[in-house]
């Protein structure tokens, strides 16, 4: 019988490397989350406080400032833009990546070349991709804007990413499910709708969420291709360079909370789906 991980001969005694690596990992976690934690704490700065410690009392005044008319007027509207762009990017990424992921299971002639062409934009410098798109638009005499050039710029990033993710999802898909559906008389469309897509659904939801978050905080590709109306990350960046007040921190806290909420909901749904169909080790009898 196998039971649990192997144990060292002297139970309980850990080698010094354990403590060294544990320390390193703790430092890494601190480095990763420390700055964000500082931002969350400082967003509750008192009305007379500044962008650094010490805290001068606590308040929620900076949160209220976000929605007040005035300097921050662009934040809610750019937030809306970011969300709707991310939603569209997410939908398009899912549609194309899922189709491509299913298509690439077949080794059609030229599939290798096509694959490398599709993923090449992952390794291209992101600023240049955005710049190239903006240049192309100008060359053609079109205006850069949110749902044209910016959308395209973001898709160069999310599509190859989504394709990779779909490969992982499709790899675990058992071809005989599709054959069984065909055997039982399902048409190609019924097979896709009743068998393939529902079985892939947890992976597809994960992919949608991934594409959404990639788009939501994309900066480098979007910045040159966005046109006159900013998305949230661009707006925040503009604010950082022009004005500094704890409002920035409050925005950070709110957007982080929004992201976490979205991720939690998606994970919860995926978890529920997975649990419903968890593949238990078959017990005979």
């Amino acid at each position, binding site marked *: 019988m196998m039971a649990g991980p192997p144990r060292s001969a002297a139970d309980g005694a850990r080698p010094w490397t354990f403590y060294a690596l544990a320390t390193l990992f703790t430092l890494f976690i601190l480095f990763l989350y420390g700055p964000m934690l500082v931002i969350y704490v400082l967003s509750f700065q008192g009305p007379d406080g500044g962008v650094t410690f010490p805290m001068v009392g606590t308040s929620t005044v900076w949160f209220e400032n976000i929605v007040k008319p005035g300097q921050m007027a662009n934040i809610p509207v750019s937030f809306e833009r970011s969300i709707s762009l991310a939603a569209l990017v997410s939908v398009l990424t899912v549609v194309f990546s899922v189709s491509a992921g299913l298509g690439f299971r077949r080794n059609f002639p030229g599939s290798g070349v096509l694959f490398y062409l599709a993923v090449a934009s992952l390794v291209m410098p992101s600023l240049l991709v955005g710049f190239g798109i903006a240049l192309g638009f100008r060359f053609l005499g079109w205006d850069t804007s949110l749902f044209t050039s910016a959308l395209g710029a973001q898709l160069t990033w999310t599509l190859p990413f989504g394709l990779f993710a779909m490969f992982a999802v499709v790899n675990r898909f*058992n071809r*005989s*499910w599709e*054959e*069984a*559906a*065909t*055997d*039982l*008389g*399902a*048409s190609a469309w*019924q097979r896709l709708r*009743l*068998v393939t897509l*529902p*079985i892939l*659904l947890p992976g597809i939801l994960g992919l949608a969420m991934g594409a959404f978050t990639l788009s939501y905080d994309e900066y480098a590709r979007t910045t040159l291709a966005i046109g006159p109306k900013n998305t949230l990350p661009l707006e925040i960046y503009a604010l950082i360079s022009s004005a500094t007040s704890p409002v920035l921190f409050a925005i950070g806290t709110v957007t982080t909370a929004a992201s976490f909420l979205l991720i939690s909901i998606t994970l919860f749904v995926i978890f529920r789906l997975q649990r*419903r*169909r*968890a*593949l*238990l080790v*078959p*017990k*005979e*009898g």
Partner: protein
Amino acid sequence: MTSRYDVELVQVTKRYGTAVAVDGISLRVPKASYCCLLGPSGCGKTSTLRMIAGHEAISDGDILIQDLNVSNLPSVRRGTSMMFQNYALFPHISCLDNVAFSLRVRGVPKKERNAKAQQYLDLVHMSDFAKRLPSQLSGGQQQRVALARSLITRPKVLLLDEPLSALDPFLRVRMREELKRLQRELGISFIHVTHSQEEAMALADLMVVMEDGHIRQADTPRAVFEEPASAFIARFIGGHNVLPWESGMIAVRADRCSLGGTGDDPRLAGHVTAVEYQGPVVRVAVATDAGLEAVAVVSDRDFYRSPVGPGDAATVSWSQNEAHLLAH
């Protein structure tokens, strides 16, 4: 007019690029028979099954099901139904919905198809599990549901791809009986792919031994066991000593061999290399100095009358008429 055969293969060939997986095989499966395709892995048995099912295109030749040439028909119009090796139950829907799937895609109303599916779950004694998801069932239970899902399409021929290989030995024997019972009761043909000669012998009316994309022998299990057509078959189905003899290669059943020898019976003299006690019988392996090996399976009573151990001198003998001359 009723057809005499449920399935006929006529010079069926399957090529993958330049590799030939199935090489011009012909076979007739009589009505309502249990046919086992038997062979080592890579012999072409699964490709053959998948071609009959329509999941693999035929490179050459024809497949007839009850006199209808189905070579170019899609799976659903062939009157076959396939049970996959891992059962391929849809993991996201209940057992009832799995069984009702073929009715659903044909547009049968929900109430009607569920009632029908429930009937077929009854047939395989799984009606209590209708609401469960496949992952909540044991391997044997999953197999029953998969059977119900195939049978609800009222196939003329049921195709089974290594249906018992995922089960533990005890359950395998039980499901084997159940498969045979269902086949008899339904009166349709089953074509069952397996690499286990024991399974094939227990089930088959027609046992088809394949090697290298060819059918080497197709006959009743008894005929194959009594008169294996070649050394390969004699070795593959087991229980035989395959020996080079005066007239050519011969096969002698190990259970018809005895230790010691009387008169001028043919014999091999050598030393015991292994003794296996198997309850009712004892299996004694003997090797000659020239490197020939023979096995005698003797009753425990005979063995313990004059027991031998590894290293002892021993002679394996058989009567002349037990030796079966092999074609090659």
